[in-house]
């Protein structure tokens, strides 16, 4: 075998190995390290005195963590449902071969180009009763107009849903639009010839055909929801009080401001397991369908 041939054979391995090493160490290595830390009694710095499951016990006794989980459930559900429905709706509208389709697509997709911090700050201004919507309506003469979700502890979590949905909907739309364009036109034509009413065409043919798109959308939204951190920090700073605390903000404050490294690690591990339980079945089902060559 000539040198160049041999080189050509091992080249992919050479090129891939540094990034493989980095990923193994920096992603999986530190995941394992975090999980390990969650069984110690580390405070300010890592310390390897193992205490079993005690940190998990403390975690689930903390009222703040319970609030964070409840918020995650509210936020996650609404975020996924609203963004999916809205995204699908907009995609269907745009799919009607309208004029200036490119313009609309860009307009709806643009929020995704903003960072979460920017989105958070924009919505903080819009929803702030003294600056934004309420102020504007009152200036315009509607003096009884009240919209104070941002500062009401029971409502503030919904403002995060609003901002989050606003940001991600365009992206969801793009995914669905791609899916819609992939639906076999022959079937649609056949349905039209059979005289199927338009809503039946959607509910019976098109939406079922979008199943792979739904799955992708769901996984992307789910992991965005669980990772949400910057949006909360920019929009409410976890307030009023602790009413918009999410697992991610909880993890940060435990680890970095309270010197409770082990509790922070425990909460991170719980988040990881939750995410994994969503992603792994998805990956499994995706990879199973892949032809094995």
């Amino acid at each position, binding site marked *: 075998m000539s040198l160049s041939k041999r080189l050509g054979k091992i080249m992919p391995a050479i090129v891939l190995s540094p990034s493989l090493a980095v990923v193994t160490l920096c992603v999986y290595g530190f995941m394992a390290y975090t999980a390990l830390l969650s069984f110690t009694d580390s*405070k*300010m*710095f*890592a310390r390897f005195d193992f205490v079993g499951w005690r940190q998990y016990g*403390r975690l689930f*006794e*903390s*009222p*703040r963590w319970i609030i964070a989980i409840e918020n995650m459930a509210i936020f996650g559900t609404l975020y996924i449902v609203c963004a999916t429905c809205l995204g699908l709706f907009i995609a269907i509208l745009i799919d009607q071969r309208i004029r200036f389709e490119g313009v609309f697509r860009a307009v709806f997709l643009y929020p995704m180009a903003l960072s979460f911090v920017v989105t958070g700050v924009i919505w903080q201004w819009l929803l*702030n*009763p*003294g600056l934004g919507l309420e102020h504007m309506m009152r200036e315009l003469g509607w003096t009884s107009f009240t919209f*104070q979700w*941002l*500062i009401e*502890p029971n409502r503030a979590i919904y403002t995060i849903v609003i901002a989050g949905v606003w940001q991600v909907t365009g992206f969801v739309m793009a995914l669905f639009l791609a899916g819609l364009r992939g639906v076999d036109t022959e079937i649609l034509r056949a349905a039209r010839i059979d005289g199927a009413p338009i809503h039946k065409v959607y509910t019976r043919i098109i939406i079922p055909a979008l199943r792979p798109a739904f799955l992708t959308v769901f996984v992307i939204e789910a992991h965005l929801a669980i990772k949400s951190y910057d949006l909360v920090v920019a929009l*409410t*700073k976890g*307030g*009023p*009080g*602790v*009413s918009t605390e999410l697992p991610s903000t909880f993890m940060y*404050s435990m680890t*970095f*401001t*309270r*010197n*409770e490294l082990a509790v922070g690690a425990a909460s991170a591990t719980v988040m990881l397991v939750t995410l994994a339980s969503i992603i792994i079945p998805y990956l499994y089902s995706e990879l199973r369908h892949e032809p094995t060559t």
Partner: protein
Amino acid sequence: MRLSFKMMAFTAALSASVSGHALADESVEVLHWWTSGGEAAAVGVLKDDLQKKGVTWQDMPVAGGGGEAAMTTLKARVAAGNPPTAAQLLGMAVNEWSEQGLLGDLTEVAQAEGWDKVIPDQIKQFAVHDGKWQAVPVNIHRPNWLWINAKIFKDNGLEPPKTWDEFNAVADKLKAKGITPLAHGGQPWQDDTIFDDVVLGLGGPEFYKKAIIELDETALGSDTMIKVFDQMRKIRGYVDPNFSGRDWNLATGMVLKGDAAMQLMGDWAKGEIVKAGLKPGVDILCVTAPGTEGSFLFNTDFLAMFPVGADKLDAQTKLASSVMSPAFQEAFNLVKGSIPARSDVSGDKFDACAQKSMADLKAAEKAGTLMGSLAHGHAEPASIQRAIFDVVTQHFNSDMSSKDAVTALISSINAAK
């Protein structure tokens, strides 16, 4: 990580040499969060002082009030085995770092310069551990101030309140006239700044000591504590509806502009007053928070010294000695708005509020009522401090009853212990 810090050190050294101080062969690297206008100017004082002694100052500012970002950076550097010469730390943080055995030793220069005699004991207990000086106090802030818009009070014929009952009466009158009584920002540390004032004001110094510093369960569960939360609920009614998440300086701005009548805030608010061209003590009155006259809550910025090699020890000593010099303590605190940590600095150049602060400090030291502020990290380690913040903030932002709040307070503290 290491590489980038070396790069930073290199750039810092480069910029120093460009500005003509390349002759200094000694250098100190100081991590701090004095980044706002007045604070940065105050750091400039120290920098110039050291340059005169031939020590180059490598600035390592990490922005973010309260120093959370700075603490994260500091932990990363220490974990990487590359600590700075010194870092700005608040009292309890000095304790926590010292317990980890990560701080250096300044005892030699401390003894030579007689620091023992000029620093109040309560402050010394944060700087000295096991007989070793490990940090130098830069200033003393007092969080238990009430700032009052003099014009609003004069127009409405009001007198500064001396007790919480008087405070409520004044606030009710203001509210009836459509004036926001209290400017406040809904952030946990600000909520707790008020909480400290109420605990001290309603319960007195002994109660504060028992409940907040010693975490005595009978004190925490007492009727006094229920009254404290009752008062917190009243105060919640005196802030404007839009207070959530507001930064403290914006709240101060409301008092300055006359949008609100009062603010409960530490003396760093003075920086905002001066910046707005108003006179503390004249346009904006400074009185001790209701019921806290005779007591002095404090928080102090320390420069904690990390262990350095023999080659850098001399520069570190010079840094510590500069910080402790009366001239620096005066110059720095004039700019910063606090008062000197040394008790032998004259107050002639300071404004009326600072002079009152200095007199009160001496009195409180004698009476044994000089106590660390919980809100500002001088009463409890971070985990317990934040556990108390949680309850105070949650109570303030909900309709939780005072009784439930007391129960939650005790269980939250126990969970964090």
